[in-house]
C-alpha cells in the first residue's frame, strides 16, 4: 500500500497532488489526440465548404445532421426522465444561444481562416472560466493564473498586431459578408429557410456536398462530443482540457502548413473552387508566436488551482499546527455592487465643499482633455494628442486629491485609530513631490532645448493653450474661493473655540487669523491648488512664447519661459512640502509652539504637580492636535482633579486629543516591584536612590 502511494507521488512528478499515472490513460490520450486532429481537419474543411455554401444554410445543415444522429443515439424522449415544462423553456434558450454562438463562430471562420479561428474560438470552458475569474474578480487563484491570463492577452494582441493576415482587408474583400447583414439575415432566414431564396449560394450540386457535410458533422460535432465526455470522466476535466487544447492547436498548425500542399489535396473535398485561397490565411510569425502563447496560457489556466484562502497567522495550536484566521478575507469580499458604490461615493463627494470643487474641476478638465483628444484624432494632429495625454497625466493629481478628500471623512477604524484625517496631509505631500518631478522634467527639457532650440509649429498651439488657460483659470477661481472659505472657516472655529474657553481663546483665535497665508487650507487642497496654478503658468508661458516666436521669431523664448515656469513651480511647492513634512515627522505644530510652552509652564504651577516628563505634542491632521504627557504629583493630591486641570490648560493651547499619565511615588514603587528582571529592579532602586540623593542635596543646601 505504501509502495503504491509513493509510486503515485513520484511518477506524477508533483508533490502534493496525486494524479493517476499516464500509463493507464494512454489510450484515452491517444483517442483525444485523434479526435482533435479530426476536429481540426473538419474545421479546415468547413472553411472550404463555407466558400460555396451560405453560412446560415451551413449551420442549419450542421445542426440538423447533428440533431438527427444524436436523437438516434441518445433517445431523449423514450428513455430517461420526462422533460418538464420549465425545462423546455431552458432548452429553448440554450438552443437559441448556442446556435447564435456557432453562427458567430463560423462567421469568424469565414473571415479569418481556420487556424486563427481554432486559436481564438476553441478553448474549453475550464480555460474560459478561469480567465474570466482572473480578469473580473479579485481572487483569481494565485499568480500563476494571472500569468496565464497575461499570456492569453499577449497572444490575442500578437494575433491582432503582429499577424500580417490583416482582417480589415478581408472584411473589405467579402462585400456580402458584413457583420450586420449576416446577423440580421441569420435571424431572418432562420425562421423561414425554405422560402427565402434571395441568398444565392453558389452551389451547383448539393449531392457532391453530402460527403463533406457528413464528415464535418461526424468529426466536429459527434465524435468530439463523445470523446470529450469520456476523457473528462477518465482524465478529469482540467487535464483533458489541457491535452485537448494542446492537440487541437498543434494539429491546426500542422494542417495550416500543409493545407494548400498538393499532398492534402486528396483530403480536400472542395478542391474545385478557391484556388486563389492558397495565398490567404497562411502561417506567419505572429500566428506561430501567438499559438505558442495560447498553448502556454491554456496549459496554465486549465491546471487545477491550488487555491488556498489567504489567512492571517493567529498562532500555533498545542500540537504545533499553525492556525489561520480567515475572517479578513471574508470581510473583504462583502462589497456592494458597482453602480451602488459609484452612487454612494458620488453622494459623498458632493456632500463636502472641498471634494465637490475638486470633482467639478476634474470633470471640466477631463471634458477639455477628451475634446482635445478627439479633435486631435480627427485632424490627425500629433501635438494635440500629446497635449491631451499630458492633461490626463495632470488629472491623476486631481484624482489623488479627490480620493484623499473622500478618504478623510471615513470613520476611524481599529488600524486608523485617529481617523483618516492624516491621509490628506500625505496626499498633499505626494502632490508636492509630483510637482517637484514635473518641475524637474520641465527644467531638464528646457535646458536641452536651450542648447538646441527646435523649430516649433505655432499654428495649433495658441487656441489650445488659450483653452487650457481658461479651464485652469476657472479652477483657480474655484480653489481660491475654497481657500478663502477654508480660512474664514478656520478663524470662525477659532473664535468659537475662544468663546467656549474663556479669555484665553481670544488670543488663540487671533493667532489663527495671523497665521501665514495658505495655512487656512488643508494640505491636500493646497497641493491641488498648486497643481492647477502650475498648469495655468504653463499655459501662460506657452501663450507668451507663441506670441514671441510668431512675432519676432525668437525660438529661444520657449525654453526660457519653461525654465522660468519650472523655477516658479519649484519655489511654490517648497512651503507645502515643508509643512507636510513637519506634520508627518511629528514635530510640535509651529503655530501652537508658544502656546504649548506657556501651557506647560502653567501645568507645572498647578497645585500638587511636582514635574512633568515626556511631553509629546503633534498635529495629527487638520483638526486633531494630539498630545501625551506624564505628570508627577504629590501623593496627597487627587489625580482626577489634576487631570481635569491639565486637560483644560492644554485644550486652551490647542491640544484636543490628550492623554495624561499621572504618577505618584507609589507608582514607581509598584513598578519596581512588578518588574521582575534583576536589571530593572536595580534601575528602579537606583531611581529611588537618586531621588534620595537629591533630597539630601537640597537638605544640605
Amino acid at each position, binding site marked *: 500500500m505504501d509502495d503504491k502511494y509513493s509510486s503515485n507521488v513520484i511518477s506524477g512528478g508533483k508533490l502534493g497532488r496525486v494524479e493517476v499515472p499516464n500509463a493507464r490513460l494512454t489510450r484515452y490520450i491517444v483517442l483525444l489526440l485523434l479526435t482533435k486532429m479530426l476536429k481540426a481537419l473538419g474545421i479546415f474543411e468547413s472553411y472550404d465548404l463555407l466558400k460555396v455554401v451560405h453560412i446560415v444554410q451551413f449551420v442549419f445543415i450542421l445542426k440538423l445532421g447533428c440533431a438527427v444522429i444524436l436523437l438516434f443515439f441518445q433517445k431523449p424522449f423514450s428513455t430517461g426522465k420526462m422533460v418538464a415544462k420549465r425545462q423546455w423553456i431552458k432548452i429553448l434558450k440554450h438552443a437559441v444561444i448556442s446556435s447564435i454562438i456557432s453562427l458567430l463562430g463560423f462567421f469568424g471562420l469565414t473571415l479569418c481562416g481556420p487556424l486563427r479561428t481554432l486559436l481564438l474560438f476553441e478553448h474549453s470552458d475550464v480555460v474560459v472560466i478561469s480567465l474570466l475569474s482572473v480578469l473580473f474578480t479579485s481572487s483569481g487563484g494565485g499568480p500563476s493564473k494571472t500569468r496565464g491570463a497575461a499570456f492569453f492577452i499577449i497572444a490575442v494582441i500578437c494575433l491582432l498586431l503582429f499577424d500580417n493576415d490583416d482582417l480589415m482587408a478581408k472584411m473589405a474583400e467579402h462585400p456580402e459578408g458584413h457583420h450586420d447583414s449576416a446577423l440580421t439575415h441569420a435571424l431572418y432566414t432562420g425562421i423561414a429557410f425554405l422560402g427565402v431564396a434571395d441568398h444565392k449560394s453558389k452551389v451547383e450540386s448539393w449531392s457532391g456536398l453530402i460527403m463533406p457535410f457528413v464528415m464535418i458533422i461526424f468529426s466536429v460535432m459527434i465524435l468530439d462530443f463523445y470523446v470529450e465526455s469520456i476523457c473528462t470522466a477518465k482524465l478529469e476535466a482540467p487535464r483533458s482540457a489541457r491535452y485537448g487544447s494542446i492537440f487541437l492547436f498543434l494539429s491546426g498548425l500542422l494542417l495550416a502548413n500543409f493545407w494548400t500542399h498538393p499532398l492534402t489535396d486528396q483530403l480536400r473535398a472542395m478542391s474545385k473552387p478557391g484556388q486563389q485561397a492558397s495565398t490567404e490565411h497562411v502561417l506567419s510569425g505572429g500566428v506561430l508566436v501567438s499559438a505558442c502563447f495560447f498553448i502556454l496560457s491554456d496549459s496554465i489556466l486549465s491546471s487545477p488551482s491550488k487555491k488556498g484562502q489567504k489567512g492571517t497567522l493567529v498562532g500555533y495550536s498545542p500540537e504545533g499546527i499553525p492556525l489561520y484566521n480567515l475572517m479578513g478575507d471574508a470581510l473583504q469580499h462583502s462589497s456592494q455592487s458597482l453602480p451602488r458604490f459609484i452612487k454612494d461615493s458620488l453622494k459623498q463627494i458632493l456632500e463636502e465643499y472641498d471634494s465637490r470643487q475638486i470633482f467639478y474641476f476634474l470633470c471640466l478638465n477631463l471634458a477639455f482633455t477628451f475634446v482635445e483628444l478627439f479633435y486631435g484624432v480627427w485632424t490627425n494632429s500629433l501635438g494635440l*494628442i500629446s497635449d491631451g495625454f499630458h492633461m490626463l497625466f495632470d488629472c491623476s493629481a486631481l484624482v489623488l486629491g479627490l480620493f484623499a478628500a473622500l478618504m478623510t471623512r471615513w470613520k476611524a477604524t481599529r488600524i486608523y485609530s485617529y481617523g483618516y484625517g492624516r491621509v490628506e496631509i500625505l496626499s498633499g505631500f505626494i502632490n508636492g*513631490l509630483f510637482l517637484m518631478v514635473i518641475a524637474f522634467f520641465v527644467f531638464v527639457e528646457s535646458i536641452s532645448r536651450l542648447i538646441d532650440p527646435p523649430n516649433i509649429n505655432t499654428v495649433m498651439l495658441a487656441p489650445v493653450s488659450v483653452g487650457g488657460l481658461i479651464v485652469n483659470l476657472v479652477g483657480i477661481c474655484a480653489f481660491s474661493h475654497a481657500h478663502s472659505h477654508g480660512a474664514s472657516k478656520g478663524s470662525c472655529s477659532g473664535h468659537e473655540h475662544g468663546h467656549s474657553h474663556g479669555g484665553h481663546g481670544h488670543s488663540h483665535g487671533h493667532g489663527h487669523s495671523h497665521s501665514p497665508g495658505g495655512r487656512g487650507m488643508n494640505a491636500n487642497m493646497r497641493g491641488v491648488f498648486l497643481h492647477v496654478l502650475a498648469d495655468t503658468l504653463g499655459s501662460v508661458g506657452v501663450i507668451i512664447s507663441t506670441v514671441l516666436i510668431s512675432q519676432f521669431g525668437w525660438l529661444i523664448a520657449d525654453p526660457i519661459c519653461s525654465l522660468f515656469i519650472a523655477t516658479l513651480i519649484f519655489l511654490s511647492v517648497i512651503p507645502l512640502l515643508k509643512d507636510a513634512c513637519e506634520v508627518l515627522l511629528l*514635530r510640535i505644530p509651529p503655530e501652537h509652539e508658544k502656546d504649548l510652552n506657556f501651557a506647560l509652564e502653567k501645568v507645572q504651577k498647578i497645585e500638587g504637580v511636582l514635574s512633568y516628563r515626556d511631553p509629546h*505634542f503633534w498635529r495629527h491632521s487638520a483638526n486633531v492636535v494630539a498630545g501625551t504627557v506624564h505628570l508627577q504629583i504629590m501623593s496627597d493630591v487627587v489625580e482626577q482633579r489634576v487631570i481635569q486641570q491639565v486637560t483644560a490648560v492644554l485644550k486652551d493651547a490647542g491640544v484636543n486629543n490628550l492623554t495624561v*499619565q499621572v504618577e505618584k511615588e507609589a507608582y514607581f514603587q509598584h*513598578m519596581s516591584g512588578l518588574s521582575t528582571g534583576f536589571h530593572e529592579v536595580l534601575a*528602579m*532602586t537606583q531611581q529611588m536612590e537618586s531621588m534620595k540623593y537629591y533630597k539630601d542635596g537640597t537638605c544640605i543646601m
Partner: protein
Amino acid sequence: MVAVDVINFQDSDTPLHRKKQETDTYVLWSGPPWTLTEQGTIHPFRKTHKSFLGKFVQEFNLVASDRRSWKILLFGVMNVICTACLLMWCNSTNSMALTAYTYLTIFDLFSLITCLMSSWVTMKKPSQLFSFGFERFEVLAVFASTVLVQLGALFILKESVERFVEQPEVHTGRLLVGTFVALFFNLLTLLSVKNKPFVYVSEAASTSWLQEHVADLSRSLCGIVPALSSFLLPRMNPFVLINLAGAFALGITYMLIEINNYNAVDTASAVAIALMTFGTMYPMSVYSGKVLLQTTPSHVIGQLDKLLREVSTLDGVLEVRNEHFWTVGFGSLAGSVHVRIRRDANEQMVLAHVTNRLHTLVSTLTVQIFKDDWTRPSLVSGVLPAATLSASDYGGASGFLPPASSKQAEELDPLTSTPTKPSSPPPEFAFNTPGKNIQPVVLPSTHQHRPYNLGGGLGVGAGLGMGARLPSVQGYRTSFSAAPHRYGSNLLPSQTSQYRP
C-alpha cells in the same frame, strides 16, 4: 556591604552624568530650534537654499565624521557619474526603455541618501521639537524615494503612450552597453552597501507581484530540479529582482530591434519596466505610508488585543478606550490609552499594572486613568496619610539584597507590590513567570487609607525606606525634572551592565 558601596558610588555619579547629557542636547538643539527644524524637514530636496546651507554643512560633517558613511558617499559619487553617463546614452539612443532603467539607478541614489540619513538619525537624540526622536526621518525618506520613483514610472508611462502614437527610431549602439553598466552598478550598490531602512522595509512590506510570480515560477522549477531549492525558494530581494528583470527586458529589446527592427518593442519594454517599478515600489510605499499615517501595524494587532484583554480584566478596570497605537520609526511602538476604573480602585496600582502589561510591547506609553464621579465626597474624605509611603521600602529592599539572591527576592511578597496572602484566590493571568501573576487586591474603601503598609510590616530595609517617607516638594521637583527619560533610559542594558558585580 560591598554591593551597597558600589551602588552608592554609582548613584552619586549617574545623575550628574545624565544632567550633563541633557545640557549638551540643550546646547545642540534647543538653542536654534527653528533652524534645526527647517534643516530636518527639508530633507534632501533643497540643499542649496542659502540660509540652511551652513546648517546642512554642519550636519553633513557630523555624518561624514563617521568612517562608515565614507563608503556610502563614495558609492553616491560613483552613482552620480554613472547616472549622468546613462542619461547621455539615453539621449543618444533615444530609447525609452533605457530611460526607464536609468530611473532605477536614480532610485539607487535615493536609497544611498536614505542610508546616510539613517546613520544621521542614529546620532541624534530626541529634541524638544521632535520629541519622538528622528527615526521618522528615515521613514519619510523611504516613502519619498519610493514615491518619486513611482512618479518617474508614471512619467515613463505617459511618454510611452505618446510614443505608441508615433514611434521614433531607436539606435541600438549604446543600448546593451548602457544596460550592462547600469545593471553592474545597481547590483554593486545593492550588494555592497548595507542599507538598513530599505532592507527592513523590503522584508516587512508585503510581496510585490513580481516577487510572487518569481516565487511561483521557482517553486515549480524546484519541483523539477530540487537542488535549486536553497537558492530559489527564499524570498527574493525585490531590488535585485527588478534590476535583473529590467536588464532582461532590455536584452530582448536589443535583440528584436537588431534582428527585426521592431522599434515598438522598445516602448513596450519601457512600459513593462515601468509597471515592474510600480509593482516593486508600491508595497514599500504603502508600508512606509502607513507608518507615516500613524496606523496600528496589522501584525501587532493580535498581540495588542491580547494585552488589552488582559488589561481589561485586571481588578478595578471597567473599560479600555481611546486606544491609539502606532509606530514611531521602523519598529518601535508608541501609544496612549485611557483606562476607566472603578471608583474605589487604586489609581496608581492600576496604572502600574497596566503599564507593566503594555510596556513589553509598547515602548513609549501613556496611560490615562479615568474615574467617574470622583468628586463625590466619600472618596476624597481627606488627604492620604503619610503611611502610604511606607511602601517605598520595596525599592530599598531590592537594593539591599545581594544580586545572587534576586531570584529568591522575587518570590518574596514585598517585591511584587501586591499584598497577596497565601490564601488569596488564584491569579487571573498565570504566565509561569513569578512576579507577574499579580492579583491586585483592592481593599474596600474603608481601608483605603492604608493599603500598602504590608511591605513595611516585613521590615526589610526599613532604614532606607524611612528616608523617602516625607520628601520635600523642592527635592522631588529637582529629582524628577533632572531625569526626564528615566524610566526608559535606565533600562538600557549598556547602562545597567555597569552595576554588575
